[in-house]
């Protein structure tokens, strides 16, 4: 299995809804086997249903002080999903 490549995005410090806009735009740009790693100031709860509607899966890694890291990949992309395991 080839390791998934990653697109990195740091959206900390941006006003709403710019972090969500950039993450959605970044997700749309994902190539096969690729996933998006986004660093955000707080868990963007309203983003998740939007990702689900667009056919993405995601995982949230909590960091210190409410910050978190999101890993996002196309739901049907087994290679990108495997990179999460």
């Amino acid at each position: 299995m080839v390791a998934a490549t990653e697109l990195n995005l740091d959206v900390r410090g941006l006003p709403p809804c710019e972090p969500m806009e950039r993450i959605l735009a970044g997700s749309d740009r994902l190539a096969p086997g690729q996933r998006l790693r986004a660093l955000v100031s707080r868990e963007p709860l309203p983003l998740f249903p939007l990702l689900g509607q667009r056919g993405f899966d995601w995982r949230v890694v909590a960091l210190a002080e409410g910050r978190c890291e999101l890993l996002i990949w196309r739901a049907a992309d087994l290679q990108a999903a495997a990179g999460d395991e």
Partner: protein
Amino acid sequence: MSAGLSLEQAPPLSVPLRFFLSAPLFGLAAAGLLLWLGPDALASRWSAGALALTHLLVLGVLTMVMCGALLQMMPVLVGVRVARPRLLGTLCHGLLLLGTLSLASGFLGAGREAFRAAVALLGLGLGGFLAVMGLGLARVAQMQDNVRGMRWALLGLALTLGLGLLLGLGHSDLGLPLWRLPLTDLHLAWGLLGWIAALVAVVAGQVVPMFQMTPPYPPLLRRWLAPGLFALLGWRSLAAGYGLPLAQLPVLLLAALWATFALLTLRLLARRRRKVGDASLDFWRLGMLALLLAALIGAAALLAAPAAAATLGLAAALLFLLGFALSVVNGMLYKIVPFLVWLHLQQRLATRIEVRHRIVLPNMKSLLPEPRTRRQFHLHLAALVVLLAAVPLPALLRPAAALWLADFALLGLNLLGAARRYRAECRRIDRHPDAVSGSPASA
């Protein structure tokens, strides 16, 4: 994959929008009443005009916005499942609207039938809202500070409603006595502090760091503000009811609590990461400054001679209602409305796969243009300053009322502008040449 929230749990945008768009109309009614009654309106807290004005503001404007915002934001931000949100929203809005009108007309001389109708309509509307939201909150598995705080605020609303219904029944001529003095003070204290201020504090914990990009509130405050507030309100209520000694101490402690909250919020706003300000930020700053002044003047009123105490009490009440609560609600609306419009447009676009990559949606900031919101902030500030000047100079009450009329009219127009923009963007998505005809997401 994280347990995500479903936007389907939230009501369509039209549900919160009808609450938000109704609020400025009640504000216009209150300002119109003040203009009509003139200096007599605020001559006594027991005057018919003062009672009608107060309820048009706290029920028609503040509670109206708060119920609409909770219905929409609780599923999106807290994960509360609200059963039948569209039905609940429609019923609650209609009952609150008619109940508030009945109550105001009852105070203005429409008779006992108006009070009876108000008791039934508000009891059903707010009682139903409390039951459904309470049930939703009870089912939330993760006990976060905001969930705990919401429960306290809803308890505050329940107590305020219960006391209000008792007072309303007293006015209804159904054989129940009107325990006016003891019940009114309790109703006022629980309504202003246990419901409005408690909810503002809980919501501030969520929206100030999120929308104003400040550091979070200290965990100690988020955890203990609401229980501390309720303990002090309970102490005050029992001390007043049973004539206990030190009845004024909890009032002074309540003033200290809210002054601390105001100062802390002002400090957080000064430490925000994004240095560019906007009208929403100025509404929050004004709101917190007014809360601080209301707490200080309210405390001074306790220690002042009776004649001065009445004047100071009126100034503190105006600062609290119009300076603090209305400013903060205004500041929240200017963030929540564009946020919800953006979110619902994104949701709508996501369901139209064929045009998803061909349409660029407007960003949140452009949905409510800053020059318009800034203009309304300036009107709001002018209206507040003239109204406060009218406390010692009653001749200024009518000019103040005219400024409040303009303030609420501009707020309504600004919100209507965002709603129209939403409709226009929905049409742009649905009528795009590449769109496949079918049923779009509900508006």
